[in-house]
């Protein structure tokens, strides 16, 4: 038998833990879990080198269901814990699982800083526009007017737009998808292959406390009219038969929905997606009658954990090899006889 036998091809099952999945029936989290378990083998991920780090929330139960290493931490702190983990072992493939409450409410500050530092992580934010685990209070992404147990007269907080917040924080990879999308694996793949902090907002349905908020977008019938799938270098077309598209209004600096062919709109009036264009990405975060999906922005830049590693090498050059005895003697010493 050969000294090192060929690694057996892993399947979805190899990434499923023996723990019973305990989300509510119909929860969007099931679909996301399936997508992740299906995608990892296709990327040659190894369970032993993969870690899922989460905060607290229904979404944050995710790690228990993956047959990888996992850390179900405390509310909002997953990005900071994942940063420490990645600094201690940059070889690991670290995924952060968070929710709209975990990541944007109590955890907003850590999300800001992990994104600006560009730590090499995949960050999946499950956005169901509600606090699921605590039974349905409005969250930072809930729409104004949302009636919940803590907002009997409707929420008055202006919602955060996660992708816009991410760009404002200096994120270098920003994408959006939704729980049941066939193209979710694409986004996951792009995120895993990206070096740096890859942020994906995943629209997720909470059938128990916020059922159907994304139906218009995710529904098979109505969906196509609302889904703008972005492709770097391709014109921004959408609609059941791609009849619609986005045109730039240079005066207002806004992207307008137009129908190709109608009132003189030509093919090449349609804006071509450039995922490295920051201002364009900004406009795409919040469009009038359509939702941009896929990679809004991707612009590789220095990776935090790599820079840290570099500095440790540099330190040796600058300060010399590690020598404990010399360290204790640095500066002035004297001898008593």
């Amino acid at each position, binding site marked *: 038998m050969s000294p090192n036998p060929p690694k057996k091809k892993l399947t979805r099952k190899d990434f499923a*833990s023996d*723990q019973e999945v305990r989300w509510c029936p119909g929860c969007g989290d099931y679909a996301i879990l399936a997508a992740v378990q299906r995608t990892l083998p296709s990327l040659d991920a*190894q*369970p*032993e*080198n993969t*870690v899922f*780090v989460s905060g*607290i929330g229904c979404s944050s139960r995710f*790690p*228990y269901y*993956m*047959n*990888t*290493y*996992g*850390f*179900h*931490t*405390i509310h909002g*702190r997953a990005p*900071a*814990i*994942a*940063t*420490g*983990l*990645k*600094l*201690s*072992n940059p*070889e*690991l493939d670290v995924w952060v699982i968070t929710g709209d409450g975990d990541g944007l409410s109590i955890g907003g*500050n*850590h999300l*800001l*800083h992990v994104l600006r530092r560009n730590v090499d992580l995949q960050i999946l934010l499950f956005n169901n526009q509600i606090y699921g685990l605590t039974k349905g209070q409005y969250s930072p992404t809930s729409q104004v007017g949302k009636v919940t147990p803590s907002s009997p007269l409707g929420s008055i907080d202006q919602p955060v737009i996660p992708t816009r917040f991410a760009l404002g924080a200096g994120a270098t990879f920003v994408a959006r998808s939704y729980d049941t999308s066939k193209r979710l694996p694409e986004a996951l793949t792009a995120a895993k292959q990206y070096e740096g902090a890859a942020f994906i907002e995943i629209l997720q349905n909470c059938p128990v406390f916020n059922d159907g908020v994304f139906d218009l977008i995710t529904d098979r019938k109505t969906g196509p009219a609302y889904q703008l799938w972005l492709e770097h270098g391709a014109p921004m077309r959408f609609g059941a038969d791609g009849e619609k598209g986005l045109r730039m209004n240079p005066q207002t600096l806004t992207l307008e929905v137009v129908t190709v062919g109608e009132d003189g709109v030509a093919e090449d009036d349609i804006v071509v997606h450039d995922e490295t264009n920051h201002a364009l990405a900004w406009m795409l975060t919040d469009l009038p009658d359509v939702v941009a999906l896929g990679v809004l922005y991707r612009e590789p830049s220095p990776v935090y954990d790599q820079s*840290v590693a570099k*500095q*440790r090498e*540099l*330190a*040796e050059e600058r*300060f*010399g*090899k*590690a020598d*404990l*005895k010399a*360290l*204790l*003697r640095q*500066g*002035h*010493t*004297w*001898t*008593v*006889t």
Partner: protein
Amino acid sequence: MEPSAAARAQPNPRETLDSVVIRFAGDSGDGMQLTGSQFTTATAVAGNDLATFPDFPAEIRAPAGTTYGVSGFQIHFAAHDIRTPGDAPDVLVAMNPAALKVNTELLKTGGLVVINTGAFSKNNLAKAGYEQNPLEDDSLDRFRVLALDITKMTLESVKGIGLGSKEAHRCKNMWTLGLMYWLFGREREPTVEWLQAKFAKKPLLAEANIAALNAGHIYGENAELPHGIGAYQVPAAKLEPGEYRNVSGNEATAWGLVTGAKLADLEIMYGSYPITPASNLLHNLSKLKQFGVTTFQAEDEIAAVSAAVGASFGGSIGVTGTSGPGVALKSEAIGLAIATELPLVIVDVQRGGPSTGLPTKTEQSDLFQAVWGRNGDAPLVVLAAATPGDCFYMAVEAVRIAVKYMTPVMLLTDGYLANGAEPWLLPDVDALEPFPTKFADDPEGFHPFQRNKETLARPWALPGTPGLEHRIGGLEKQQDAGHISYDPNNHHVMTKLRATKVQRVAKDFPSVTVDQGERQGDMLVVGWGSTYGAISQSVRALREEGLKVSHAHLRNIWPLPEGLGELLRSFGNVLVPELNNGQLVKLLRSEYLIDAESLTKVAGQPFTIRELVDTVRERLDRSLQ
């Protein structure tokens, strides 16, 4: 330092003194801290034992000439071994009126005041709040005054070197240092070398400062010093032979952490957010990346400790340093490390509280927070360093315990230890017993919460290890298996196991020792942390009076060391002096049902020997009546 009659008659030859306390005081801009540390080095070289206490203002740079802008540095050196920077100074160096104003109170009657008259302008006198010039009234009569225009003489000494007026003025402190070197017979070489190194890139500055240093020294040699002021010598102390250096607590802690990690064969991930007086722990460690240290300046304390916990999960020793307010913010995440049973070292460099309190002053008021300050039954190990040098050993110990028992360890130091320097006999690092970490690697029958029978520690299984994939978290875990468990009895059992594990650590500590005196007597003074020096010197004084007083100093706060209860019961009285409103004393009372009495000082300052000696005597008298 009362000069002998002989000295009064004719100052020379050098009069011999047993011990001296000097306080250098001036404007934040006058470089008193540098002057002090240089004098410290020279004094160490001269073989005296010494202790120092830097005392700088809360403001970054308070306006020049103001009383709250005064920066002080006190050094106590002697021909015998000493343990505190001393109560009242024998010598005060006052570089401006404000410095004189805030320090005359402290100075011993008959003490020597060296004054820079060059700074005694109307304006400065006013800023210091003097109606009239103290040099012209009788307010300094109880002292011996040496009033010189140091500014003028400094400027002369550096004339021609071609400095700007600002730089030239800056040399005042070196002139003064030169004079003090002469007064106390110190060598100039170390300082000269240091100046040459410091200003290697600015030869003019080096030349000027050295010139000023020499000029001050020459002034001492030649000038007719006023009646009653002469040159002194303090013979070398009989110190344990070996190689020494001066070390501050935050240096020693940093080096101890690095040493502990090396002995454990681990890398350090130090997550921290700057806070006085813990910031330079971060500074020190950030210069040690070549020792396998990663420093992470986090966005806040919560991220700092969280990153440390994440790093421990990944196989480094996660360490986080801060002060009281930071520990408060970290408490939830520390609870996570307790629940997941990961190693973690938290260094709390205590400062005056509550809330923002007195950030630049020392205090011991975080003991309760360290032992009890978390939600749920959340036990961890608490250690406390007694001296700057002890910070090194306690840091090593913290790493050892954290890894061996898979538990967070809180190391308590304070602002006094962090900034105060003492001569430190360098440890022989090769002689230190290594405790290499053993990670789990065998999938066969692996369970993430299956405990070591002796230590009750769970296995440390690192991401990256094939076959040991597992999930941990803050929810209650099933014994052994580690899966989430809502089972009532399991929670009871796990709670007891977590508590027992921490108590087990006591078996790993030396059982309680008595630092001075017998194991029974009229009074046991029980201290912890930075009060070590003051208590031990006071107890020595009291014992010399023949009182049956002993001193025990706790380095293990939680669990408490074995044999402590018995020891406490062997004394008629137990006194617990603390720089807080009475915290350790409550622990001792509840654990041992001993009527331990509390002596509290919450003034942001260490105990003086006098305070301690008087209190012990008075309490003893009361109890013996």
